[in-house]
């Protein structure tokens, strides 16, 4: 109870300067810390799977993504919007307060015990041969949702690349980092990735029976891929590379093929053959991990830019 109060107080104490801060950089720095705190909150809510994702995405990727956004904004023409008037500020305040009250009321109005599908999931989990109910839901019972999410990532990469100026099309994504040939950053960029790959494989593998899985593993892989880029000792591959595009699409394609195999063998899309459910799930997850890792990295890097030094 004391721990919960401490975490909630810290979340609020961090959230306020993130929103109110005048400098974009300070807001991003505190937002990264905020993500770490959210991971603790998820642990307290017994959602270790979500905590792992939050730790991997929050600590690893969203910070780099937001810093890149701040950098791009700083390079553009100054924003000349007039500051909001008093009536607009009041309206925004009322709107936010109303939303908060509505959310609170909705949570308090939940029937007790809250409606849950946890029972049916645990009753049928044996059919999928995996021990982690989260994996069973993501890959089995709600497999179609996960398939569509994976497809959304591919579409997001396509949409992002569409923003590239014609002259830069086919070039390397992201901006060029100043090179750190030696020193602490170069050391980390050389030492950490091999260890990180091992950790990612471990997280993916235990995901079948314990918290972990493809998304967390992919986020770790992405962070390890971005590290040498941040140190300026490796450049990302140009987006015209065929293998890069194939990798991005491979995960959803493998998932769809597994789905049609289910139609042919079991008579239902995404039905896994009996006795081979776990093998198919893990095979699809391995390919998905690679695809998600590459897609996340490309999304964080951004479209290829005309002026690579900007």
């Amino acid at each position, binding site marked *: 109870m004391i721990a919960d109060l401490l975490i909630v107080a810290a979340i609020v104490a961090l959230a306020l300067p993130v929103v109110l*801060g*005048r*400098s974009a*950089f300070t807001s991003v720095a505190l937002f990264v810390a905020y993500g770490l705190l959210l991971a603790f909150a998820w642990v307290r809510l017994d959602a270790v799977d979500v905590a792992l994702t939050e730790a991997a995405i929050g600590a690893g990727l969203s910070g780099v993504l937001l810093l890149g956004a701040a950098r791009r904004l700083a390079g553009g023409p100054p924003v000349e919007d007039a500051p909001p008037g008093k009536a607009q500020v009041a309206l925004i305040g009322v709107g936010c307060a109303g939303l908060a009250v509505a959310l609170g009321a909705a949570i308090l109005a939940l029937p007790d015990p809250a409606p849950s599908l946890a029972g049916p999931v645990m009753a049928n989990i044996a059919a999928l041969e995996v021990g982690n109910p989260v994996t069973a839901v993501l890959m089995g019972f709600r497999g179609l949702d996960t398939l569509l999410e994976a497809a959304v990532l591919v579409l997001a990469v396509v949409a992002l690349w569409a923003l590239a100026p014609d002259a830069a099309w086919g070039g390397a994504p992201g901006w060029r980092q100043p090179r750190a040939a030696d020193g*602490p*950053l170069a050391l*980390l960029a050389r*030492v950490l990735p091999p260890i990180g790959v091992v950790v990612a494989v471990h997280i993916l593998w235990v995901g079948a029976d314990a918290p972990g899985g493809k998304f967390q593993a992919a986020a770790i892989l992405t962070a390890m891929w971005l590290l040498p880029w941040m140190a300026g000792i490796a450049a990302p591959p140009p987006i015209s590379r065929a293998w890069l595009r194939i990798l991005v699409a491979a995960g959803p394609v493998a998932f769809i093929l597994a789905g049609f195999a289910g139609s042919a063998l079991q008579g239902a899309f995404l039905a896994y053959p009996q006795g081979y459910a776990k093998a198919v799930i893990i095979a699809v997850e391995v390919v998905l991990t690679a695809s998600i890792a590459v897609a996340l990295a490309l999304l964080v890097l951004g479209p290829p830019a005309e002026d690579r030094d900007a």
Partner: protein
Amino acid sequence: MTLLVDVFTVLAVAAGIVFFIAGTAGLIRFPDTSSRLHALTKADHLGLGLVVLGLLPRAESLGGVLRLLAIWGLVLVSSAAAGPMLARLARRGARGG
């Protein structure tokens, strides 16, 4: 035997907490950013090391022991690298709003 392990864990974890408290005390009391960085990167990581040491005999398998050691090793390497980078940032005197 279990009593011995328990006593060892309690002693090591308690020593670790002392260093965490010392680190936070330094964070609060030290006057400038570079000194505060000392308090954070040194005391906290020693504290974590002692906590890891105390939990080692309680690990259920060899893999658990290796994971604990890997965690501490990773934190040592990465904070050793992050410390100087943060110090350089502090020396640039960059100020946030």
